[in-house]
């Protein structure tokens, strides 16, 4: 039994390593401008934030809609603290160079992004986490909106550059960078979920009254989940900033949170691997595969394909989403995880079934 587990673990690690290796090879082979890499980059960033949201909504049963707000905090923190000093004058053109006149190394910037997001989450959590389901959702949504307004306020321009976007901060070139960072973060989240704390979170999700009666401090654990989730949301925000090479508060709308939530649901609430898979699919569909639907003059042979014109892509996409939400309420993975042992079980079952058939035919 234990041996099996170990073996499975090793195999799955090998699989993951293989994926990274393949990407590395592809980067060497394909032109760097290929859409594939864009999707992989954005996909892995969204995977991270989706998993962090899943930790909250899926594993702790806290329905929070503040993710975009915490990504914003992360993105801005990273941008503000890593813009090279000599560039600041150009970036903060209306705020004579801004008030911060130093810059941190990339790595520190990313960590700090997480920390700041987590810190705000802690403060926000103190009052908000007392609220019940929908009220919590709408309150966190509200906080995201407030943060957005604050960061666009020109009185804070010296720090946030007001409504104008931040740029010129160090960014990544290789696809492996976001994949690695996201990978590590997700690994940490998984380890948390499988730890005694993760089990406590699940207990709260299943029945908070019982959890409390069994000595689990609700307030503390909820705040813990909320803060940790926001920490990783912040880091993904920093990655998003690097991916876009510019940051602007205007883009972190509630619509962004909804997108992330949809990713989580499509992947399966309470399934990490589900969130990861679905975020890549989601990004690939919305940004790449379906783009041809926007092309008004598409011909198959000489036949002019009707309906196609800008906007059609999104219609098709949202119909697909509704279909999934309605027909696969539990998402791609349900609350199961994609695991080697699971596959082995399936294969075994199939074999058994085959054997039975043979019996039958004889």
């Amino acid at each position: 039994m234990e041996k099996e587990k170990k073996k499975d673990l090793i195999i799955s690690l090998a699989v993951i390593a293989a994926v990274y290796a393949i990407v590395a090879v592809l980067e060497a082979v394909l032109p760097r401008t290929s859409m594939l890499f864009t999707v992989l980059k954005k996909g892995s960033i969204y995977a991270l934030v989706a998993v962090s949201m899943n930790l909250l909504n899926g594993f702790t049963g806290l329905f929070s809609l503040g993710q975009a707000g915490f990504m914003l905090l992360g993105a801005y923190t990273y941008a503000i603290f890593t813009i090279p000093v000599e560039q600041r004058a150009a970036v903060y053109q209306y705020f004579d160079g801004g008030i911060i006149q130093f810059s941190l190394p990339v790595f520190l910037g990313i960590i700090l992004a997480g920390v700041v997001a987590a810190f705000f989450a802690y403060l926000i959590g103190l009052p908000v986490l007392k609220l019940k389901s929908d009220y919590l959702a709408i309150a966190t949504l509200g906080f995201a909106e407030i943060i957005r307004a604050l960061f666009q306020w020109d009185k804070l321009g010296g720090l946030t550059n007001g409504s104008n976007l931040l740029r010129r901060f160090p960014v990544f070139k290789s696809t492996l960078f976001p994949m690695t960072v996201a990978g590590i973060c997700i690994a940490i989240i998984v380890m948390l979920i499988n730890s005694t704390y993760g089990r406590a979170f699940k207990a709260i999700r299943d029945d908070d009254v019982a959890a409390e009666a069994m000595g689990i401090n609700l307030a503390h654990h909820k705040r813990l989940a909320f803060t940790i989730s926001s920490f990783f949301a912040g880091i993904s925000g920093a990655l998003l900033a690097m991916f876009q090479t510019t940051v602007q508060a205007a883009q972190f709308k509630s619509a962004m949170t909804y997108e992330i939530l949809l990713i989580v649901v499509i992947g399966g609430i309470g399934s990490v691997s589900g969130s990861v898979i679905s975020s890549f699919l989601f990004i690939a569909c919305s940004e790449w595969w379906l783009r041809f639907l926007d092309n008004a003059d598409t011909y198959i042979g000489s036949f002019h394909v009707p309906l196609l014109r800008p906007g059609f892509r999104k219609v098709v996409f949202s119909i697909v989403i509704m279909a999934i939400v309605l027909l696969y309420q539990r998402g791609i993975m349900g609350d199961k995880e994609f695991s080697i042992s699971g596959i082995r079980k399936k294969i075994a079952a199939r074999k058994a079934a085959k054997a039975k058939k043979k019996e039958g035919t004889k």
Partner: protein
Amino acid sequence: MKKTIVLLAVLLVSVSLVFAGGSGESAGSKGSKVVKIGVYEPASGDNGAGGKQETLGIQYANYVTPTVNIGGTEYEVQLVIVDNESSNDKAVTAASELVSKGVSLVLGSYGSGVSIAAGDTFASAEVPAIGVTCTNPQVTLGNEWYYRICFLDPFQGTVLANYAKDSFGAKKAYALAKLGDDYSVGLCNYFIKAFEALGGTVVYETFPEGTSDFAAYVANAKKSGCDVFFSPVSIEAAALIIEQANTQGLSMPILAGDTWDSNVVLGAAKGTKVNVSVTTFFVEGSTDPQITSFVSGLKSYLASNATAMTNNGGNDEIAAVTAMGFDAYYTALEALKKAGSTKGADIQKVLPSVTYKGVSGDIAFDANGDAVRTVAYVKKVDNATGKWQFVSVQSVK
């Protein structure tokens, strides 16, 4: 039931994959060589309307001149149009979409924010871009792959400030920008600088995205006793502001930048008492043969092409951005000819020396990659006819 859905989904994805793959390489319909020009414009979002008018100009130019002679061989020019949805987070993927389609150079975008956001993507992919009407300095600043054929906000802002003072004797101005929009915030900023330099005072306010209720803002302008109302915002907001100004009987003139040079604004201001003036790149009523032929040609093109007509806002009033799009296309062709190659790097080398006499005046680039423009036209709405009225040619004192 579920099975069929699965099938459908799989089918869809596979088909789209084929398309995504296939879209990389495609020969011209007549089998001739193809050069691709990327059109990086918003077709939706706040700047959708303006983006479409700009795209229209490019499309018309492409319809007039569908081929170009590069290094002795005739190339068919193929436009690759992508929608950046007027939002910075979609901008990057939209830009890399163009790059991955292998375009030689890019035109656009309407709206400075998305241009700035995509700048680094083009630069890192070594694809030169020619901004059409993105007037924020940040677009070309420190990015040797981004050029533009329009004037800049510092210039435009100063022009408007001067105009406000000279023509309306304004002492106090009300400036309204959209929160989180580089273009309007930037232009307001320069306007305020210039106007205060001229000894005026300014009340500056911003409205959050998705605002449709401008009553309070117009009321603020009245309350603070301003002489001019300066709001270089997207034309979606423009229409609502004019509407509201009319409702509240706003007596002060409204000033705006190039974005407002659009038939949407004309439509909104027609039959009202609102006095709207804009600075712009292009005036229709000219006798220059090049311009007249462009105007008549485009009008007939619009008449013949229903979708183009709707994209232009339902009538054949020609917006400055359309003219600019038209010029941008020919500037691009000039660059291709001069470079004698379809490689981005080669084009970028020659771009600084490219010149072209367009319908919006002479186009040449300075060291920064910005157009050398010393004058801006000022137009005002004729409320009776709902047409533009040429006022003056303004230049900075």
